[in-house]
């Protein structure tokens, strides 16, 4: 799941010339400006579709989405990821 979400974030949020941005499961996403808070809707929609879950707004907060690791926690909490 980690790789899938990392790949999505790379494609969706990084520009082509952002090749020097290092991205791993612990990289801050929203507080660092990689993911702008206005487009969290896309990330939420992607997770819901991909893992066939429904995320309530209070769980799709800027804090919960601030790293791939915490995103995985949220997805699993809602029964996504098959584990």
């Amino acid at each position, binding site marked *: 799941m980690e790789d899938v979400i990392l790949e999505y974030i790379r494609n969706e949020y990084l520009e082509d010339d952002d090749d*020097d941005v290092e991205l791993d499961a612990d990289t801050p996403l929203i507080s660092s400006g990689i993911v702008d808070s206005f*487009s969290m*809707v896309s990330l939420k929609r992607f997770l819901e579709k991909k893992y066939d879950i429904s995320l309530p707004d209070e769980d799709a907060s800027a804090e919960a989405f601030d790293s791939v690791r915490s995103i995985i926690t949220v997805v699993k909490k809602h029964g996504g990821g098959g584990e």
Partner: protein
Amino acid sequence: MAYSGTLKQAYRSELNTIEEKGLLKEERYIHSPQAAHIEVEFPQGADLKPVINLCANNYLGLSSHPEVIEAAHQALDARGYGLSSVRFICGTQDIHRELEGRLTEFLRTEDTILFPSCLDANAGVFEAVLGPEDVIISDRLVHASIVDGIRLCKAVTDTYKHANMQHLEQKLEEHQDKRARMIVTDGVFSMDGDLAPLDEIVALGERYDAMVFVDDSHGTGFIGKTGRGVHEHFGVMGQIDVITTTLGKALGGASGGCVSGRKEVVELCRQRARPYLFSNTMAPPIVAGALKVIEILSRSTERRDTLEENTKFWRNGLTEAGFVIRDGESPIVPVMLFNAKLAQDIARDLYAQGIYVIGFFFPVVPQGQARIRTQLSADHDLPMLEQALDAFRKVGEKYGILGLDKKGIIEKYGM
């Protein structure tokens, strides 16, 4: 009063942190009217220094134009200094409505409403026309005032990669379930000087039933053959649903802004936009000055033509000298230095040589993209620009960056 020692200490410590990071903004005192040549006191208490100004938004050189000043003087005598009212109580003079009409003609829209500033226009317009059933899809590099305006609105938000039409199209497809879609972009992006591809954006708006919003604050008055803005440049005049722009840059540079576009959008702003309803009307001398500016621009394209020539000369000169600049055709020409300290050092050295420019770095521009943003004016002449180029060459040589590309500069100075 309850300004506790603890709170005072906390604020002091925040200010110290800003200063320690080298991010403290200091104001320089200018003792002359805004122009290509100005006299500056910096640091505070220093002797006045005459410098060539390369960082004003005075694109058309109208900020201190004699005809504009005279018009403002006349209005001061005939209509007074201020109105002490918001528009809908007793703050609308005939000249306010006249200016709205002239802006409508100039921008080729259906109607216009004035705001105290373009920041206020952006703060009010989204909330006035969009709600939770709608979506705003904005370019990721739009101006901070648009970001604030979107935050005040209850619409769903989404963004697309800067000027990336494929990504925008994908977002428009995703949001077909909403009542209304609004694509939001700057006309000219203020930090990079590039133009939004409005022809493609309008086409996508039509295909996916989306309104198009453009903040043309850095384009109105000089982009396009007759200076109407980025929509003229791309041949889509009359097809932009909402234009916001400012009177505080090319159009005289005093203050004021507007929302111009579809009649119903403008009327809803008049009824609902909070910065319009709860803030003072524009002062009569400023309204009269702006009317004169529109008259000057409608009479001749000479000023925007001169600006275009100056821009070409400056862009060529910097490129030939070996600087890395952002490509484009607008009079915003960023000289890329990537490293924040380098940008500050070079700006300081240029000031010593009589060239007034400012280094920009994070958080105003993304990390690792520090630069000196130069801005041209129709008031510059070739000898001034030659002198400025000489100074840039000298300083570039001193720091050994001439002829280096992005990689070379970063290798030498880091990000």
